[in-house]
């Protein structure tokens, strides 16, 4: 029923790669592995897989980690999607990879089925938000009642609905549960999350630019 997905796994810890490979569903095939920035760029360019699962912190390259890999493969972003997987709790790490072009961010505590699900979701062009990433978004865009976007083209503020979705995700709701809670379809939830991801990538809100500047991305 589920479609098969090829992924490339990028992480500098052999044991962790083995663990991820073992926990993924049968429908998710690991077609390649890399353990530093340069090897990852070469491999991704050669294979052009639909999904790359990569750690935020990677050795090699110019020290830019996962964000550097994504930036170097920026021309592939329409066909190859990146999902960041990290133990880091630091806001600037998360924001750095998202702004570089990653389609989602999950923590390494994620279970195998959830990770497989996230990979398929990213492959389908959707965004994947962990509760913690949703928390960062709310922190960065503010939760004050008056701070609500009025138009769709406004990048620096969230709409009321987007904020509701983010709050539910931060509270630990899955997309399906968010949809039931708000009486909307899963597709609509995905649309909202994608919109938030776009704002996160393009917004010039100063909290975001500050985080990005901390990693010298601007």
């Amino acid at each position, binding site marked *: 029923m589920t479609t098969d997905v090829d992924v490339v796994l990028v992480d500098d810890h052999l044991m962790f790669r083995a663990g991820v490979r073992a926990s993924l569903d049968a429908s998710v095939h690991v077609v390649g592995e890399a353990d530093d920035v340069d090897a990852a760029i070469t491999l991704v360019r050669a294979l052009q897989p639909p999904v790359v699962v990569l750690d935020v912190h990677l050795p090699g390259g110019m020290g830019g980690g996962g964000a550097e890999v994504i930036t170097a493969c920026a021309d592939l972003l329409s066909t190859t999607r990146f999902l960041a997987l990290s133990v880091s709790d630091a806001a600037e790490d998360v924001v750095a990879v998202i702004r570089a072009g990653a389609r989602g961010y999950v923590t390494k505590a994620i279970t195998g089925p959830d990770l497989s699900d996230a990979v398929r979701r990213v492959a389908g062009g959707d965004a994947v938000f962990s509760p*913690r990433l949703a928390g960062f978004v709310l922190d960065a865009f503010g939760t004050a009642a008056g701070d609500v976007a009025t138009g769709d083209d406004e990048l620096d503020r969230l709409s009321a609905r987007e904020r509701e979705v983010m709050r539910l995700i931060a509270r630990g709701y899955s997309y399906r549960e968010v949809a039931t809670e708000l009486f909307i379809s899963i597709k609509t939830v995905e649309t909202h999350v994608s919109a938030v991801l776009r704002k996160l990538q393009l917004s010039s809100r100063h909290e975001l630019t500050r985080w990005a500047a901390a990693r010298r991305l601007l």
Partner: protein
Amino acid sequence: MTERLPLRRPSRGRWVGGVCVGLAAHLGLPVVTVRLVMILLTPFGGAGVLLYVWFWVAVPAGDPAQVAAETRPAALSRLAPRLREPGRRVPLTDIGVGLLLLVAAGLLIAVRAGVEIDYSWVVPTLILVGGAGLAWSQLDAVERGRWLSRAGGRTPVSVLRLLGGIVLTGLGVLLLVGQDAPLEALARSAVAALAVLVGAALVLAPWWLRLVNELGDERAARARESERADIAAHLHDSVLQTLALIRARSDDPDAVSRYARAQERELRAWLYDDRTTPGTSLAAELKDVVAEVEDTRGAAIETVVVGDCVPDLATEALLQATREALINAVVHGRPPVSLYLEVAAERIEVFVRDRGEGFDLAEVPADRFGVRESIIGRVRRRGGTATVQNKPGRGTEVHLCVPTTEQEGEPR
């Protein structure tokens, strides 16, 4: 003690430059003996004085015991430095030497002006030696200042003293060389000498700059090294201990996962969090509560915090209610347990969610004090609301909300 203290010139107990005290500490001899030897050596061509001056110049100032402590590996040393003994407030020796030099300079100028004293070359020599001594002692005061504070010890007073020393030395050299020359010729030669000095400075400047840069690099490398030692010490104290503990208890999965979780949290806090002062951050206090529940119940709680504020009575009640709700979720519900805290301008909200079957508030027996009193009652007494949402197949969610207290003088 088998190890010798390093050779330093302590500021405590010194008469002139602290050379004898330092030597005595280094060699393990009584100070009196060292001083006596120095004085006895002096008649032999001034050997004692020369030796003293050489040590004064060559040996850096500092407390030998403290230097010994600093060179020990970071993992073995105390974290908090010992209290420093207060040094002498008034630098009596320096003031004495300074006054002496001023008198000598005055005398010299008087001689130049016409007063006949036949010591015309002894006095300049004295001034020269004194001035050089002052400048040298100044250099090492600068160094001492760097040790004491990171500001660098560049106080106006130290610059003034350095300049004074240089001027006196220059004066001494001039007068010594041009003993019989008239004042006018002296002034002209002073200008010429100054020009030569400036030329030499221009030539030497790049070399000197490079030296300064290398010094900076070296200092940065040392800072990195000490940070690395700091990290190694921390890993040794925490992570390695926990790993050993885990290996010893490997047959008990509950204990292993609890140790791993506690260690992960501690390491995370150490790596990513800024240390907050106690009593200033609700987020930090919430994390403490989560840590306590995780440790005692051995469950993982996914925590997301948005915003932060200074704790008060209302948030205190909110935290205690949150704690009860977390314990309830861990014990009666099913994992994963999620916790969400949001601090907004007008209210603070907490959501605690688990995936268990949940419970109906109406069916909770009156004697179950837990939910009714410790969660709901607590929050309501602070003007807040508490609800328990419970949907079949979607777990249980406790929602706590308290209004923020108005900030004085800040209408919101």
